[in-house]
């Protein structure tokens, strides 16, 4: 998957359970642009499987705050409890 399109703008992949509101979208674009130092465009994908929360990937940096990821993390913490 490419993170740069023809106009030399970075593209971030966003996955949410339900579509982003306009306000949320604007805030996200602003935060990402500030951090990347370059204009950022969003490529949104509605993914019911993540149940809730948001997952943003920009280049090789991933921020995963979806409910699905947390459920998996809790499961592995419980299953591997006491493991060194």
């Amino acid at each position, binding site marked *: *998957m490419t993170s740069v399109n023809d106009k030399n703008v970075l593209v971030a992949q966003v996955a949410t359970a339900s579509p982003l509101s306009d306000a949320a979208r604007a805030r996200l674009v602003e935060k990402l642009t500030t951090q990347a130092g370059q204009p950022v465009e969003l490529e949104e994908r509605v993914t019911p499987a993540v149940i809730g929360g948001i997952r943003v*990937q920009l*280049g*090789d*940096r*991933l*921020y*995963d*705050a979806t409910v699905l990821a*947390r459920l*998996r*993390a*809790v499961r592995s*913490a*419980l299953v591997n*409890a*006491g*493991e*060194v």
Partner: protein
Amino acid sequence: MAEVTLDATALDQLLVGAVDAWKPDAAVETVGTVIQVGDGIARVAGLDGAMQGELLEFSAQDGRVVAGLALNLEEGEIGAVLTGDVDAVKENDLVRSTGRLVDVPVGEGLLGRVVNPLGEPLDGKGPISYDGRRPVEFRAPGVIERKGVHQPMQTGLLAVDSMIPIGRGQRELIIGDRQIGKTAIAIDTIINQRDTDVICVYVAIGQKASTVAGIVETLESYGAMEKTIVVSAAASDSAPLQYIAPMAGCAMGEYFIYNGADGKPANESNPGRHVLCVYDDLSKQAVAYRQMSLTLRRPPGREAYPGDVFYLHSRLLERAVKLSDANGGGSLTALPIIETQAGDISAYIPTNVISITDGQIFLQSDLFFQGIRPAINPGISVSRVGGNAQIKAMKQVAGSLRLDLAQYREMEAFAQFGSDLDDATKQILNRGARVVELLKQPRYVPMPVENQVLSIFAVNKGFADPIDPSKVAAFRDGLIDYVSTNHADLLAAIRDEGKISDETDAALTEAIAAYAQAFVA
């Protein structure tokens, strides 16, 4: 978690408590993407900070996590080998770095267990409690941290302990064709350590699972399993697992030599333990490494092995060590096994490992089929540590054994002339034939060193000369029984003093003479 009875409400509370205690960490992760996968190899884009040999986690679509090793760090991508279920990983899957090099769990809890190279139990005896993790790749100790090898590692095999003695901290290669008794020597050595302070690690690489099960059963029935760890990367396991198996086994053993009995680092006042590591066999590890390297597109060298196959074995075997007293005085003895094809010891991998180890035990098919088992050829077998690893008593009696056998082999061709030979040659032939019979030993009957000394002493003094060669083994066994019952103090004297004093010599001669007279073939 603390012990809890199987009560629904208690369990419920525990789970709720554990979930509440868990804190999500909202860090930004560095991830890569799989751009190509196949043949057990995945090529990953991104992950700029990956380390050589780092453990990577591949997140498959269905939530499964497959582990992989980053081995090729190239300009635009990383070549990683997958250690787990290779079919689960698809193109575009996310790859996370764990930030750590491959490591294995270690600890006292591993003793008596059968595990895979990642430390997971395979024997169905429940979870293992570990005492920490150690990296699979570990820099071998330098010169100053070591001490010379001076303590014997008794194998219990008469042929080995007399002529090719192994010391604690030595690397002794066991080399021969298939089905010749290489594993048998290693297993007998492990069984002989059951009453000593030596911890054994048996690493099975690329073997049939049924064979490993048989070995575990044998060790259990002879009471040797309690102090043994069996690490198994069976033939059906992926090549990366077979590749790291010996190094994982070595890491599990290293925990015991670098830490005292209390689990704290070993030093002068907190001695480290002694470990024996058997790698069965390194030929299969080299083949697995070759498979990984060729699928990673690394250039093939001689016999299609990668260029660093020597380094693969040398860095593993350098980790065998006798530590100095300041470092706790622990030791790790390595018994690598190499399988040759048609007795060709000048092939690539055998010559590599021969040049690395401190000696080798050669097993030959023709000796095996002549009935000489263990089928050791003492002429070309050598131990570069030699006498330093023997107690004085053994040195006293075994000195001429090798020479006797060498002379016998030379003269063997003349044996057919029978009575036409001069007396000196006849004596060489007579004695040699009886020494060969003396060194034959059945499996799973390791001999304590004092019994070995007694047997060789008897033959050296000529007590076996009048006996028919085929009865020599029975003579030896009967002699050991007789002396253990009637003159146990003599055996104790040999064991405790470590040498045969003049009184012991005279008393033994008398006792053996009495036995020999009564011995009826």
